[in-house]
């Protein structure tokens, strides 16, 4: 990291767009590390602490975390126009990429080996979810109420297959009561 260059927000909408464009275009294997690298290390739009705080907020909001970050940061720097520009820059390249890849794949998906490879990739992706859950869950492991909530959510969503339109609001309400009583 170049300490000599001061931290400053993007100068104009074009800079904002290209920054988010590059985050989206090269974020293979997860967007967050690329967002950090682009905004904190390369372009020096914000400090490490700023970044952590913003992402912290975006993880609690509904919606794609990094998509929310583009809205929140765009707004902070340029208002509504900034939000729109940042969001489009972020989503544009991956949207084209993923559709092209999918169209290509559909042409060849009758090939049994290729299909097996892709299903294997999907299963590994499912494993990444499980790994993420374990990582996020570790700090909660000492709180019995949290473990009960996690198990109840899993039973309701994955085993009983209740609609999350029901499970998430009810779960959040119960968790909020538990948090107010300092069980979480």
């Amino acid at each position, binding site marked *: 990291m170049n300490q000599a260059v001061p931290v400053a927000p993007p100068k104009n909408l074009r800079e904002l767009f290209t920054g988010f464009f590059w985050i989206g275009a090269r974020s*293979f*294997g*997860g967007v967050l590390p690329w967002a950090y690298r682009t905004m904190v290390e390369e372009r020096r739009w914000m400090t490490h602490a700023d970044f952590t705080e913003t992402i912290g*907020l*975006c*993880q*609690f909001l*509904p*919606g*794609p975390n*990094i*998509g*929310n970050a583009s*809205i*929140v940061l765009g707004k902070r720097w340029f208002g509504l126009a900034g939000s729109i520009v940042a969001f489009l820059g*972020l*989503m544009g*390249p*991956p*949207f084209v*990429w*993923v*559709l092209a*890849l*999918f169209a290509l*794949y559909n042409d060849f*998906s009758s090939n049994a*080996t290729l299909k*097996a490879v*892709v299903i*294997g990739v*999907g*299963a*590994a*992706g*499912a*494993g*990444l*979810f*499980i*790994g*993420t*859950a374990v*990582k996020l*869950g570790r700090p*909660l492991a000492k709180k019995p109420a*949290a473990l009960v*909530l996690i*198990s109840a*959510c*899993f039973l309701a*969503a*994955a085993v009983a297959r209740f*609609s*999350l*339109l029901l499970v998430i609001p009810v*779960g*959040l309400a119960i*968790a909020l009561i538990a948090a107010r009583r300092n069980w*979480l």
Partner: protein
Amino acid sequence: VSLVELALYFGLLSLISVGGLPSVMPEMQRFVVDVKGWLTPSEFIQAFAVGQAAPGPNVLIASLIGWKVAGLAGALVALGAMCFPAAVVAWWVSDLWDRFKDSPWRQAVQRAIAPIVVGMILSGGFVLATPGSPDWRLWLIAGGSAAGMLATHLNPLWLLAGGGVLGAVLL
């Protein structure tokens, strides 16, 4: 009709997707595969895999589902519906969030959301690795990549590639 249904349902999902798209993955699968039959369980995991192998936020799997349902229009509508309501919330809440920095309610909300998100992401992983009837080979691959992620600092792309190789050998 399916475009409107898609927009409304994904719009609703967008509002409850605390912690991001992984949280509502079980619901997407349930609605798109079990309720509507727009995709088979196997097609769903394939769409998910393609989404994982491309750059960008994993919300893009929504556009692949939309594509399957109604082509390019479906892809745009699905992605828009999944992002727009949440974006409006983010727009309004970002100021409030700073103002209530030290409020006990903000801290309670933060602590309350964490276990729900963990439960949902865990469910998402389980549901994705179990398309149709349970298959030990998929569980093995998923377990391996989860362990690899926790034990190493590899770029997740390597774990996905490993899953692909195992898939070719086992499936």
